[in-house]
């Protein structure tokens, strides 16, 4: 019987095995939440230990952000006056209603730590397939897989979604707009991504890689997915550079993030 089940076509299994999995694992959700929090608390993140150069870079970034903050505060005051005059006009070209839900990670694939993450929110809280998982407002974690259950959903990490179109931008916020930067197509490799660019392109270690992929939800565009770790000449073609990118945030180290979904029931499409 089990042998027969395991050989049935996937299309026949998907509708009911997903529901069955959710029902069976439902009683384990609170325990999974606690265990995930304990795991994240216990795990040391080596990438958080900064070297001297990284520390200097962080200090420069802090000063830059501080300057930008004060400039933005001035701009906000200007815009508040403008908003006052525009209030009352009908919305034009609205992005549509959306919901942002804070979710806790409750588990992952026991034998595949790089696989999807299960979270404790589903359709009842407004999570929809194709939604975007975001950490700290600017970092893309992954996307909500289709077939969302009433109480749980699976998040596919960005690293597990195959080829991704992105743009490599400088660190400084002023230059980090999505429309600027070098367009690249990232290929998952060795726990990160790799790509190649022409040698004339100025790409250096530490640059931010932001999503720019029409296959993803609009909420994901421009979010940071990785940091350039290494730039080396491509051995097989010296006119090109090979770029290796590491994820900004390891999804396995997260126990809580935000999921942004279309709020309407037909919000599967990006």
């Amino acid at each position: 019987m089990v042998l027969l089940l395991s050989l049935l076509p996937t299309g026949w299994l998907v509708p009911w095995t997903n529901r069955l999995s959710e029902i069976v694992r439902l009683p384990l959700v609170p325990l999974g939440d606690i265990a995930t929090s304990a795991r994240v608390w216990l795990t040391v993140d080596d990438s958080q230990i900064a070297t001297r150069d990284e520390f200097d870079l962080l200090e420069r970034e802090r000063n830059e952000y501080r300057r930008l903050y004060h400039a933005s505060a001035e701009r906000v005051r200007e815009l508040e006056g403008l908003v006052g005059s525009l209030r009352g006009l009908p919305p034009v070209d609205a992005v549509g209603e959306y919901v942002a839900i804070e979710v806790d990670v409750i588990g992952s694939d026991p034998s595949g730590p790089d696989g999807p993450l299960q979270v404790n929110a589903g359709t009842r809280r407004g999570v929809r397939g194709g939604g975007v998982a975001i950490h700290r407002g600017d970092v893309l974690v992954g996307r909500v897989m289709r077939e969302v259950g009433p109480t749980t959903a699976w998040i596919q990490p960005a690293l597990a979604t195959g080829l991704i179109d992105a743009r490599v931008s400088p660190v400084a916020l002023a230059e980090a707009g999505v429309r600027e930067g070098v367009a690249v197509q990232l290929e998952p490799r060795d726990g990160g991504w790799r790509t190649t660019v022409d040698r004339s392109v100025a790409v250096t270690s530490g640059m931010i890689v932001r999503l720019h992929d029409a296959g993803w939800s609009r909420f994901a565009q421009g979010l940071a997915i990785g940091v350039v770790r290494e730039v080396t000449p491509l051995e097989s073609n010296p006119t090109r550079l090979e770029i290796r990118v590491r994820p900004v945030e390891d999804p396995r180290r997260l126990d809580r993030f935000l999921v942004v979904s279309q709020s309407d029931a037909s919000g599967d499409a990006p």
Partner: protein
Amino acid sequence: MRLGVFVAALAVCLVLDSSFLAALSIGGVHPIATAVLMVYVGLFAPRRMVLWTALATGILLDLATPAVYRGDQPFFLIGPYALGCVFGANLLLPIRTMVFRRNPIAVGLLAIPYLFAVGVVFMAMWTVRGLYSETAVPWADASAAAELGRRLGEAIYTGGFGIPFAWLLLMTWSTWRFDVGSVRR
């Protein structure tokens, strides 16, 4: 054997596997507590009970192991772990009378072939399913040999982890109320 105790222990092990033990991950592999539990039960429970619990545990592991269908759809295949656990239990049953069953080292060491056998069946089932054009195998771009090596590493790691874990399980031995006489039948 008291089924209630088994169910509670299985729930804890499934949570450990899917949510906690990744904290002990080395090189992408981490121990599987459920395998140690299955070896522990396999050493003491009656034969029929061992096989049924292995099947139930395997089905639960299958339902906790998502594969990806059509790029972004989670998909749970019942079978690879279920058949693997039954196969592993069948390997364990003939040799359980030849080991010092109340020794945690024996439990830990037996977890190595047990989990490796489960992994071999898991890979075999997915390889067969890989013949369907719609199915992508869970090890994605890695070769089958690399995945087998990873699973061997996982089995060895589980064996090491299994010794202290089995010691904890053996502390609760009286709670399980195993019928020791049935093991020789």
